[in-house]
């Protein structure tokens, strides 16, 4: 039987507010245990939550960025359960009336574009951490993280493969960092993914029973976990066993998922509206002010790059993989403007795109740097591109100049001058060298005249060698043809 995998994701995005969602304590990562937990975070008797407006503002930003409905009145509820790192015995979250509902996000899988629907996004507070190591027979509790603001983003079950799920998670990661509501740091837990996975016979309309894989903190684990889980479920069904709803954990060491709790063990959270917090009312003027401040979004940039710059869908998607990449690319373009290229802006854009995605990306990768940390400024890269565009540099020389730029030897023109890399423009000198090469290689000349094209290439190579690569290949071609034909 042919099987289809169905995936929906729940992503916990830690918001970038300096203070917690319901208290004034700091959200900075990595402080000594319990040094960033105030009376409210400790849930001392008598303390009360006060909503951090910054968290609401970030949720609005997200809702606008995915074209969602913003609930003008949204409500915080209490999710009740006992756990030592949950100080109040309940988590404040949104349940029946979340702030964001019904949005969508386009994803790119290879050359294909697909739209993933986002059911809802709601604000909530994070719990603290239980530390099981270091305390013999005891558990340590660190409440620094308790009360950190989270936006939980829930998708529809719209993905059909691990690759689509990863593409969606990546697109979401790009978006939340792009609009500045999350630092995107997955190691520190700023972006955590739960995957709901089920399988069904291909062509079937009904969904299979799902299992939820909790807390995946890398795209690689997300892919591995979904692939393992789908294979496992198909195996169970093909062996005649039923799938039971459950929560599972992924073990990166074994690459397997294992059951954490069954549906029967699931909590009854006894949600009810939190009487300590009034319903949140969103003011239209506020929403419009946030909309006005929103940057051009990745999907908007992609469309513009394709329409105005004539870039391919793939190039457009690659250049908008992060806001920093897009900003770098646009800074290069701006430094190139007015475009020197005879092919106009599109030609310059393609040239810039190739270098940003090619040599620059490779160099950054090699050193493990982010584009914001690039050793070559957009202005200097533009300086190099200008010299390629005007024929001063051959592509081979351009690579040499790029390496020198990366090494910090100044701007492109300085490097060209210092290394004498300027493409030969003195026609007289080139003519002399061409004549010398022809004189020195009579055999090749003969072969060419006998109809062997390969011989011509050998002559071009000899000229380039003699000029140490400084000759313009087109010019060499033209001169050789003229001499040989004459």
């Amino acid at each position, binding site marked *: 039987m042919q099987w289809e995998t169905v995936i929906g994701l729940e992503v916990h995005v830690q918001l970038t507010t300096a203070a917690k969602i319901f208290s004034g304590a700091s959200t900075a990562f990595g402080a000594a245990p319990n040094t960033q937990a105030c*009376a409210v975070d*400790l*849930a*001392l*008797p*008598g*303390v*009360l*939550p*006060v*909503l951090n407006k910054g968290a609401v503002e970030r949720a609005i930003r997200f809702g606008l960025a995915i074209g969602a409905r913003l609930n003008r009145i949204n409500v915080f509820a*209490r999710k*009740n359960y*006992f756990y*030592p790192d949950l*100080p*109040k*015995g*309940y988590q404040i979250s949104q349940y029946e009336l979340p702030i964001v509902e019904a949005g969508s996000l386009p994803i790119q899988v290879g050359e294909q574009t697909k739209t993933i629907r986002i059911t809802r996004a709601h604000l909530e507070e994070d719990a603290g951490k239980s530390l099981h190591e270091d305390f013999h027979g005891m558990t340590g*509790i660190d409440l620094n993280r308790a009360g950190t603001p989270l936006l939980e983003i829930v998708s529809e079950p719209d993905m059909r493969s691990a690759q689509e799920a990863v593409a969606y998670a990546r697109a979401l990661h790009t978006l939340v960092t792009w609009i500045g509501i999350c630092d995107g740091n997955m190691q520190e837990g700023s972006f955590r993914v739960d995957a709901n996975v089920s399988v069904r016979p291909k062509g079937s309309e009904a969904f299979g029973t799902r299992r939820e894989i909790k807390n995946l903190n890398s795209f690689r684990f997300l892919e591995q976990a979904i692939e393992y889980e789908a294979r496992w479920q198909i195996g169970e069904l093909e062996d005649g066993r039923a799938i039971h709803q459950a929560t599972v954990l992924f073990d990166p060491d074994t690459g397997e998922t294992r059951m954490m709790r069954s549906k029967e063990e699931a909590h*009854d959270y*006894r*949600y*009810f509206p939190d*009487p*300590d*917090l*009034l319903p949140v009312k969103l003011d239209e003027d506020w929403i419009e002010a946030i909309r006005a401040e929103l940057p051009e979004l990745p999907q908007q940039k992609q469309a513009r790059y394709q329409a105005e710059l004539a870039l391919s869908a793939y190039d457009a998607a690659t250049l908008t993989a992060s806001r920093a990449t897009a900003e770098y690319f646009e800074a290069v373009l701006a430094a190139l403007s007015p475009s020197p290229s005879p092919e106009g802006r599109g030609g310059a854009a393609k040239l810039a795109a190739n270098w940003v995605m090619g040599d620059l990306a490779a160099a950054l990768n090699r050193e493990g740097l982010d584009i914001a940390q690039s050793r070559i400024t957009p202005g200097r890269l533009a300086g190099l591109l200008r010299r390629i565009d005007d024929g001063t540099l051959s592509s081979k020389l351009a690579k040499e100049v790029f390496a020198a730029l990366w090494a910090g030897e100044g701007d492109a023109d300085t490097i060209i001058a210092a290394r004498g890399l300027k493409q030969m423009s003195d026609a007289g000198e080139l003519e002399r060298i061409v004549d010398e090469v022809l004189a020195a290689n009579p055999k090749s000349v003969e072969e060419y005249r006998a109809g062997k094209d390969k011989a011509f290439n050998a002559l071009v190579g000899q000229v380039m060698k003699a000029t140490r690569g400084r000759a313009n290949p087109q010019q060499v071609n033209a001169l050789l043809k003229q001499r040989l034909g004459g």
Partner: protein
Amino acid sequence: MNHTSLKQLSHLLASGQASSRELCQDYLDRIARLNPVLNAFITVDPERTLAEAEAADRLRAEGRAGALTGVPIAHKDIFCAEGWLTTCGSKMLANFVAPYDAHVIERCKAAGLPCLGKTNMDEFAMGSSNETSYFGPVRNPWALQAVPGGSSGGSAAAVAARMAPAATGTDTGGSIRQPAAFCGITGLKPTYGTVSRYGMIAFASSLDQGGPMATSAEDCALLMNVMAGFDARDSTSLERPAEDYTRDLTRPLIGLRIGLPREYFAEGLSADVARAIEAALAEFRRLGAQTVEVSLPMSRLSVPVYYVLAPAEASSNLARYDGVRYGYRAPEYTDLTDMYERTRAEGFGDEVKRRIMIGTYVLSHGYYDAYYLQAQKLRRLIAQDFAAAFQQCDVILGPTTPTTAFELGAKRADPVEMYLSDIYTIAVNLAGLPGMSLPCGFGADGRPVGLQLIGDYFSEARLLNVAHQYQQVTDWHTRLPEVK
């Protein structure tokens, strides 16, 4: 001195006839003498009190005294006060020293009011007789075998026995007004959101409200001026301009329309209480007020609605008492679940456990709609009843309680009968309205009868005015029990 009002005490201090230290010492002596009998205080800390009194005296010496600087009061042990044991009447918090001040405590400190001690109360404010306190019941100064009411029974008894000139209280379903009635003092439950709940240990968040308890309406007004005020740390605190609650005290009552709810004068009201209320009404008519019958048909549902909503909120509010971070933890346990179960089984009393179980049940999957949601809908209807009544009258008047103070132990075995003792007060909390109780006579048993006034939102000054005018022509509020 022990018969003295806040205003008179303030005058003594201002004129230099007494220092705050002397006043405090006087009250502390009286507490030392009477508390072994009445058990009104859980914590008394003379050293701390006297230090606060000396600070107040210094302020006065420096010419920086306010209206009540140096006048001591007592605080219900539900308010967190930095450095003070703050137990909420529970074994669960019997070792909890608050590391911070509630907003009410901050305001009292800022006004220079020394704290005489922390008063006894029903455990987590759950009770109507003060018998659920881990620290033992409070006795009614008017009849030692009777309850003082609850949950602010310690504050009520302390003021009635003049162990403090005034005290703070909290009222979730009648916890200021019912003990005020049973102990023959005056108490005000303000409009929800007027007094900050920050640092006031939560029972039922949407109903809890702090307020003053004193011997007279005028003193309640003076204490309200200190207690009330916007607090950004309580999201349900209302941002309104500051009020002077004494501003209307002297206003004549001519033309005042008093609404008498038919349902408050029906079956269940004892003859003693009915007689005293009738006599008070005659007094109000003499003062120029008119009476009009109104109806609060939904109020009969207020007890069941309350006993769904308040336990629901309480079951969640009390989840934090888990033995992990502070308070009581069972000495022995096998694992995490066992620690939770033993800690909470040993740390909470029966009434608290009963309400946690009711609340957990009504919020459970499959029952939420039938209980919690239904109760919320009825709560709105109850509030609408009052809105309709206030179309016809300025204030609503009735009994605070169906009977005078009952015997210790009389209702302990029957929770429902106990709950019904709050039948006239609970609807006010559900609607979020202000209400007060003031003494209006005595029953045949010699125990005080309380008269309840209910006003529209933010009409505290008017209620205090009505009560004050009555107290200008009656002397029930000046009567003093003889504690033997």
